[in-house]
């Protein structure tokens, strides 16, 4: 019997490494924010990037997205450094802060300014506004938006380029229960199209409902990674696992 890898399998094999973090270290002076961290993400999954406050989640995401230089090691998206990607907005959408808007600019113009830089047609700004249900507020200045609306405008910003990978830092902050429910459904549908989500969170109950995979870090180190179902075997909740691993009092 001969084995042969057909093209479809091979392309799946390539796309499996959507994110590769290898021996990543980031220091700020004497502070080691990320320490020899390694993990990778498969296409079509939602991965929860979990850890206590100050564990190094945001720093890792900033390095991954080319906003900060690693002290050592590397963080690659689609096999390349973020800043070496030809058209990053069409491959990766990311939200790091919930309020990265000029308060005096309208939601629509916020999206248009970024669309112009990425050579994305303005019509796409209207599409993503509809996707996050902000059409009615599109021509209001962001100063008048609630926190939940800002979260959705951030998500719309990330979706401008119709990306294959979404990277979200604490996207559920400030969302009401209906908003959280909506976000969960949205991320699920996004992943079902074979796309990938990396979502950092410290809201474990919510993460447990949303993610397939988890990467748990503490003090900049990887402490656990794997399928959510495997980590929570034997009736343990994600919270039990997390608190056990991160040494917090239970």
């Amino acid at each position, binding site marked *: 019997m001969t084995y042969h890898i057909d093209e479809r399998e091979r392309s799946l094999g390539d796309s499996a490494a959507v994110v590769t973090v290898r021996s990543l270290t980031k220091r700020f002076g004497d502070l080691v924010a990320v320490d020899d961290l390694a993990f990778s993400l498969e296409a079509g999954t939602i991965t929860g990037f979990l850890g206590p406050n100050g564990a190094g989640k945001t720093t890792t995401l*900033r390095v991954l*997205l*080319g*906003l*900060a*230089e690693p002290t050592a090691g590397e963080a690659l998206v689609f096999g390349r450094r*973020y*800043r070496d*990607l030809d058209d*990053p*907005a069409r491959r*990766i959408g*990311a939200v*790091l*802060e919930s*309020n*990265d*808007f*000029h*308060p*005096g*600019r*309208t939601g629509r*113009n*916020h999206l*248009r*300014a*970024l669309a*112009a*830089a*990425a*050579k994305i047609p303005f019509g796409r700004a209207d599409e993503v506004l509809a996707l996050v249900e902000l059409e009615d507020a599109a021509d209001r200045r962001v100063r008048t938006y609630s926190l939940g609306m800002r979260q959705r405008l951030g998500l719309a*910003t990330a979706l401008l*380029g119709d990306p294959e990978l979404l990277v979200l830092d604490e996207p559920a902050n400030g969302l009401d229960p209906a908003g959280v429910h909506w976000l969960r459904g949205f991320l699920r549908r996004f992943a079902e199209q074979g796309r990938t989500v990396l979502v950092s969170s410290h809201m474990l109950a919510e993460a447990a409902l949303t993610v397939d995979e988890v990467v748990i870090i503490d003090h900049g180190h990887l402490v656990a990674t794997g399928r959510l179902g495997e980590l929570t075997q034997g009736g343990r909740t994600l919270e039990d696992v997390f608190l056990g691993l991160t040494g917090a009092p239970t």
Partner: protein
Amino acid sequence: MRALLRSELLKQRSTRTTLGLFAAMFLLLILAVLLHSLLPTQALRSPNNQLTILGRGEFLGALFAGLVGALSVTAEIRHGTIRPTFLVSPRRARVVWAKAWACVLTGSVFGLTAGAVAVAAGAAAFRARGIDLRLDGGDYVLLVAGATGAAALWAAIGVGVGAVVRHQVPTVVGICAWLLFVEGLLAGDLVGLGDVFKFLPGSAGEAISGQEPGTLLAPGLGLVLLGAYAAASALVGALATSRRDVG
């Protein structure tokens, strides 16, 4: 680069900041020219003073264009929009360079307006005082064209300063202080600089609009020198931005 330029111009048009600065410049300009026109008749008859009064367009145009340039960087850092900006365009030096060019365009509109308004308001004020303007056509062309060029280049200087300093308040205070009195103090020779002050950027800008011929550089030289300051400032800003982590 055209895509980035288009993005930067859209950013400038889509908040009230640019328009607010433009309005402030316009009002201050009228005020400055009118206050100067209250000087004694004897002082107003001197062609050099006439040139200085009508040259307020260059001064305020350069100042406000410098602020437009600085705010194009510091406002993005202050409000956090710098993050999505760099996510879309991770080659940060190119973003700073595009900001510099966008601000050169906007700054030239500021300068052209300021130059023309100062000449028109000055001419009206002198007529009201019954004093003849002893300037020729070449002086007027230089006043308006010089204001345009100086403001365009000062906008690029502002971009570089903003990209290096990053914090909005110190950047704005620094640019205002430099143009409003630091260079003036140096020109007053408090620190024994001799006539080196004419090579400083504020004086180079004034030289472009034909101010104080003989004391300052010739207009063409002023333009070249200020252009070098603008290019150096934008370049340093681009380098600093591409090397430092984004907060």
